[in-house]
């Protein structure tokens, strides 16, 4: 009998070396992987999602967005990912998936996606300029702000990106198997500004 607990390991374990990279001087971009998250997909059943929306609001205090954007309360966030579809994000310790499945009940489909994405937080004065190189969407303040989200591609990889802070700060999610490739593309894009990777 093995009573050993398995520990988690990031897809970026060998590529995201903590420290300063790229051009010298004050780093223009900060990059950090978000660990310890629980993820789930939530899809409405049929077209009447009013009841589902109400249930989620009661349980998490979040109104499910009806257009590409992110709504959050405390440690729970819901990011629009398609027609009547959302990516739910929470802390692993916060029992997100069970609570979501319970409150959704017959009103929606819930699938546990924990660990399926590599998610990175990108912030700093040059974060927008760097992401412009990879993302074919308008990131200007006039078009994309705190709460905006988009499902798009970055260097031929499917990504989900949203803005969490005006400074700016963004979070970008990619399927876990693409993690190292996305990290390398981001590193190349940020190199001219100098960037720092935090563990």
């Amino acid at each position, binding site marked *: 009998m093995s009573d050993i*607990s398995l520990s*988690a*390991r990031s897809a970026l374990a060998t590529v995201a070396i903590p420290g300063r990279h790229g051009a010298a001087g004050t780093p223009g971009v900060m990059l950090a992987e978000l660990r310890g998250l629980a993820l789930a997909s939530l899809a409405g059943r049929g077209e009447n999602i009013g009841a589902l929306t109400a249930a989620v609001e009661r349980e998490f205090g979040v109104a499910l967005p009806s257009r590409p954007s992110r709504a959050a309360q405390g440690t729970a966030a819901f990011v629009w990912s398609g027609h009547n579809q959302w990516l739910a994000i929470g802390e692993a310790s916060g029992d997100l998936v069970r609570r979501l499945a319970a409150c959704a009940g017959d009103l929606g489909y819930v699938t546990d996606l924990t660990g399926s994405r590599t998610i990175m937080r990108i912030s700093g004065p040059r974060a927008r300029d760097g992401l*412009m190189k990879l993302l074919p969407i308008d990131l200007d303040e006039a078009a994309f702000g705190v709460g905006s989200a988009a499902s798009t591609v970055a260097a031929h990889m499917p990504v989900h990106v949203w803005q969490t802070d005006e400074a700016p700060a963004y979070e970008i999610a990619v399927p876990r198997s693409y993690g190292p490739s996305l990290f390398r593309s981001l590193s190349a894009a940020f190199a001219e500004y*100098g960037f720092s990777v935090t563990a």
Partner: protein
Amino acid sequence: MTQALAASEGRRTLQPSRLAAGGLIERESVLPFTFDGRSYQGYRGDTLASALLANGVTLVGRSFKYHRPRGILSAGPEEPNALVELRTGARREPNTRATVAELYAGLAAASQNRWPSLAFDMMSVNGLAGPLFSAGFYYKTFMWPASFWEKVYEPLIRRAAGLGRAAHEADPDTYERSHLFCDVLIVGGGVAGLAAALVASRSGARVVLCEQDFLLGGQVLSGNDEIGGKSAPAWVKDAVGELEAARRVRVLKRTTVFGLFDHGVCGAVERVSDHLEAPAPHTVRQRYWKIVARRIVLAAGAIERPIVFPGNDRPGIMMAGAVRSYVERFAVLPGRRAVVFTTNDSGYATARALKRAGAEIAAVVDCRPKPAQQGIERAADLPIFHGGTVTATHGRLRLRKVEFIDGDGHKHHVDADLLAMAGGWDPAVHLTCHLGSKPQWSDETGAFVPGRLPPGLAVVGAAAGRFTTAGALADGQQAGNEAARDCGYAASTGMASTVDAGGGAGNGAPFWYLGDTAKKCFVDFQNDVTAADIALAAREGYRSVEHVKRYTTLGMATDQGKNSGVNGLALLAEVTNRTIAETGTTTYRPPFTPVAIGAIAGHERGKEFRPSRYTPTHDWAAERGAVFVEVGQWYRAQWYPRRGETDWLESVNREAMAVRTAVGVCDVSTLGKIEVTGPDSGRFLDLVYANAMSGLKVGRVRYGVMLREDGHVFDDGTVARLAPDRFFLTTTTAHAEAVLRHFEFCHQVLAPSLDVSFVDVTDRWAQLAIAGPKSRELLGKLLGDTFDLSSERFPYLSVSQLTVCGVPARLYRISFSGELGYELGVPADFADALIRRLEELGGPLGLTPYGTEAMTVLRVEKGFAASGELNGQTTARDLGLADLMSTKKEYIGRAMLGRPALIDPDRPILVSFAPVDRSAPLMAGSHFLDLGAPASIENDQGYMTSVVYSPTLGHYLGLGFLKRGRERIGTRVRAYDPVRNRDVEVEVWPACRYDPSGGRARV
């Protein structure tokens, strides 16, 4: 005044043709450079061309076909002659226009297309054979004898063909792409573009201004206009200052907008570091911008048109506007004694500029008859000859003498080392044509002007056929305001008007004089196309402008007809008795000027060409020394060599035998995984799978086959039922995305009423195959008492959800190897820890990691189909799976799989093959022939799809499709591979060669 030439003391005067004062160059920054190995000096702000001219260098190249001596023709990106090889070593680049190459300290350039030297080029003998090399000569020569083509003609032509040498080393520089969104994009930073940018910026719009030059200002940098009471360059400086300080404006210098695409998208290339010896650390060499604009203002200016006359290509014959640019902007005198040949008022500005700089004007030859003036002052001391034309020029390596006749027919000849041609102006309309419309000929303007405009694009200034500075200023302001208003911003206030000082504005229709032989009247300088070539093409029946272009190669050089197109089609119009409008133009396509492939590729070179996908145990496998193979984007461990193993087959055999006799572990996470939920999940799966799924019990797994609508097999995998309304299924690695798309299509289009949902969980679950007679024992050590692995409680084809070492997991009892086996799924982050734990526990049992090669050996021995057999051309019946097809339900593909050709008894079906000579290898891809039958398509009996060396059987083993294969079991056929010279006799066996009853997996 010009500096005096050095006396013959043996020392060259530095920059003998540089004017002592004036210009927009930085005289404090002296930059040394070399050309053809000789050292020279220039200043920051020079181009290579202006620096060469300042140093008195006028011979810079040899023409492509005839190897005629050539000099600098222009001062812009349209340059056809001054193509040099820039830099050395890995950064060497051919065919660089000296007129746009910015000078930097240490620049090394060399002329091209000459041997042994520029001054003495052996290949100029081509010029003597001119008549043989007229238009279309390659369609008429090198035809006979046919055998000479490969051995003689082609090698000769290859050696003579091409222009310039590329570097052979890898490019040491990096490039990148970026996106840029804006309200108003302005193409061109001359007066018109700057005016548009200023008003748009003041209205609050997001503005992007692109200028290909390193200085903004355009034409006024070469003149002496005044705008709003200050010199034009000072006005430009203020405008640029305001724009660069504006928060919502981005000014991109050294940036060429090379193409207009749909939906307001433009492609542009920024030459970030071309003007430096090497890019700064972490800085790219060039950047490709994809600019998405709501409105575009095209202010790209106009290109001056040469004049066609005998001997119009010698070094020292230049465009008049370019001469003015060299004098005013670069403070260079391109010649001491000049003839100006003009068809319009522009030439006079050049004559005056030259005179002011100290050159002597030998003649101004104006092809127009003595005119009634329209407000252009003529200096009384210019020797003007109206109604005249240049008739001949002399000088081999440099212009020496010009012959012309005047309006009265009197012949003149003058000494001259510079001839400035002013043939009119052609608006740079190219971007307006990239979406398919053609420009329109305007008799009034004497040029092609934009035709039907793409939506959201406005054209201003010289690009629209308005050639005055005042016109540019007015146009720019109006267009800038309209664009800003269209984007929802309020128009802003106007600006100062211009005072035109100097700068003749004029235009005229193309003019030529061919003399008694049109042979040496050049139309396309770079491709050596003469007026005679055009006439010849028309005589031979090539009358369409498209045919003339290809037949003569007019307009096909790197300048893409910028200096030749209009003259060429005007000549064609005349010889074919049509108007210019009737003759039309060829099609302008992107890129406007050449774009380096590296800029478009950006970061995606070498390994980064496309993204890679890594399995959850990749790092562990790399530590174990795995050899990886690329399967699409995935890196998969192919085998794990051990120390001492000399050959991959040794490793693979060991791994396969370990699975057959002990236990092995293989990462199979790359398979597509889809979770299907909802009350109608079973019904949905019944629709997409050929075999029944809705009856599958909770806790059970089934092999499933999916067909295409046309009855062929699309994909296969396993389907596990976790709950009444939840299934988990796998697909092949290659088809993961395609299957999900297929599901979405089936649900949304074919069965929208079904209450079902699917999620791609490929990256959520790591999946490890644990296979071999000792696999149960190993799992028992891992799971302890928490799970009953006995065959009674967990029989073959079961699935269960459980917790393994604290993490949620799914255990499947399925076998691709044919041995007792399982697949264990855990969330991907925990796979690394899990496989290391299995290694610890499995050591004493002989646990062996195995890769894709061993996995293939095992499944081929079992006759299981995989990608090689699921090639899109096979049916379930071909694969021996006909019994799986349900007869009780509708499913995709059912109707079509009954077509006669798909149930023909003669169709090749899946069997296995062994070489008669047990030591012989087999090749996948071989085709089967009856023994003794000639090798022909008619006798083709089928083909081999997968081959392995089988350590179990001790010989090579193949799977393949053979006509009436089942009836032929026990007989022999020939496996024929003419591509790799193999011809092997093989025995036909049933597909499954190992444990046909399947008992080993069921223990």
